[in-house]
């Protein structure tokens, strides 16, 4: 699986709308060059069958999935090393590039799930991450129990954080009725989200 982060994507995530000074641009390109060798993406999903103890987000859905993705540990180890070497700018840019890559990995996972759902006759679905609107963070445990037989290399801490940190998980649902909105407007970071602006 190949995840590409463009210079434009990264600059946008860093906050720049106009081209930055040349030395920053050089550093951005250098970090993007490093990124490819540090990212080892893995992703997996599983269709969830009807059962008694479903997370509320999945209740009533005709087709249900749990999925997770990670970039692996190399990237964040390198970020840590850079911080420790006093190269904070490099560390920050590389970490931000990793965040962009993680978003792309999440979208790839979502595409795969949607393809699977489409093959089963469903076109429109929703995905939501534990810790977001209406899904308790503890749901992470449920998701990773479902994906236990997949070789993702993600470890959950006692507080339900994922290691490697550049990992994500979500539930997805197709069909049936879900209460509430699916737009960004319910999000606490709606007013200053850099992804939306």
């Amino acid at each position, binding site marked *: 699986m190949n995840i590409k982060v463009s210079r434009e994507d990264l600059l946008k995530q860093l906050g720049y709308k106009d081209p930055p000074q040349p030395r920053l641009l050089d550093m951005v390109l250098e970090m993007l060059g490093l990124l490819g060798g540090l990212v080892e993406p893995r992703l997996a999903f599983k269709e969830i069958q009807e059962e008694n103890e479903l997370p509320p987000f999945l209740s009533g859905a005709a087709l249900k999935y749990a999925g997770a993705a990670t970039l692996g540990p190399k990237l964040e180890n390198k970020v840590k090393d850079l911080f420790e070497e006093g190269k904070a700018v490099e560390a920050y840019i590389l970490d931000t590039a990793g965040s962009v890559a993680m978003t792309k990995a999440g979208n790839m996972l979502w595409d795969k799930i949607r393809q699977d759902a489409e093959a089963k006759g469903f076109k429109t679905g929703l995905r939501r991450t534990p810790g977001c609107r209406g899904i308790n963070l503890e749901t992470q445990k449920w998701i990773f129990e479902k994906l236990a037989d997949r070789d993702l290399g993600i470890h959950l801490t006692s507080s339900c954080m994922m290691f490697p*940190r550049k990992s994500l998980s979500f539930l997805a649902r197709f069909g049936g009725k879900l209460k509430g909105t699916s737009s960004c407007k319910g999000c606490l970071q709606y007013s200053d989200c850099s992804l939306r602006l």
Partner: protein
Amino acid sequence: MDIIKEIYDAVMEGKVDDAASLVQQALNSKAEVNDILNKGLIAAMDVVGEKFGEGELFIPQVLWSAKAMQAGMDLLKPHFSSTNHTEKGTVVIGTAKGDIHDIGKNLVAIMLEGSGFKVADLGVDVTPERFVEKALEVKADVIAMSALLTTTMPSMGEVVSLIKAKKLPFKVIVGGAPVDQAFCQEIGADAYGMDAADGLRKVKGLLGR
């Protein structure tokens, strides 16, 4: 050009090597240490913080400026004892118990150090007891905590409770994506830092610097 102005410009532009060599030149030419510090390094970093707050500068440039300031500060430190300058204060910093996300915390630590604060960085997943223990050990002025998730925020309140129960003099500043002024007030913390530059500004404010 006035060498103090050149130092100011070097920090503004985040030119680390230039800042260091200009501070050395200024010291060699017997410029006032307090002028180098206050009119050169600190004045520039204050403006960098303002521009960041206004969305004119972004984190990479702020970090470069902080590094340039730090390079100048390192050269100035041996001269502080012969002037009226004192350390700005000591800050114990870490992420809340259960929270392992440290990029924001690292940025704040770098900016604090760059501005002349002594920083004891406890890393990630720090228990309330450990925050207080370290603050006592290093005679801290401020405990700074960050959390990325709502589930890890409550332990910040435990730190405040511990401090109050033991009647300790530490100020507390909190920050992180889900944290806001209302939460800060709810747990009885002294300040909320909206971002790294605001955190630095608030720490200075707490200590009257």
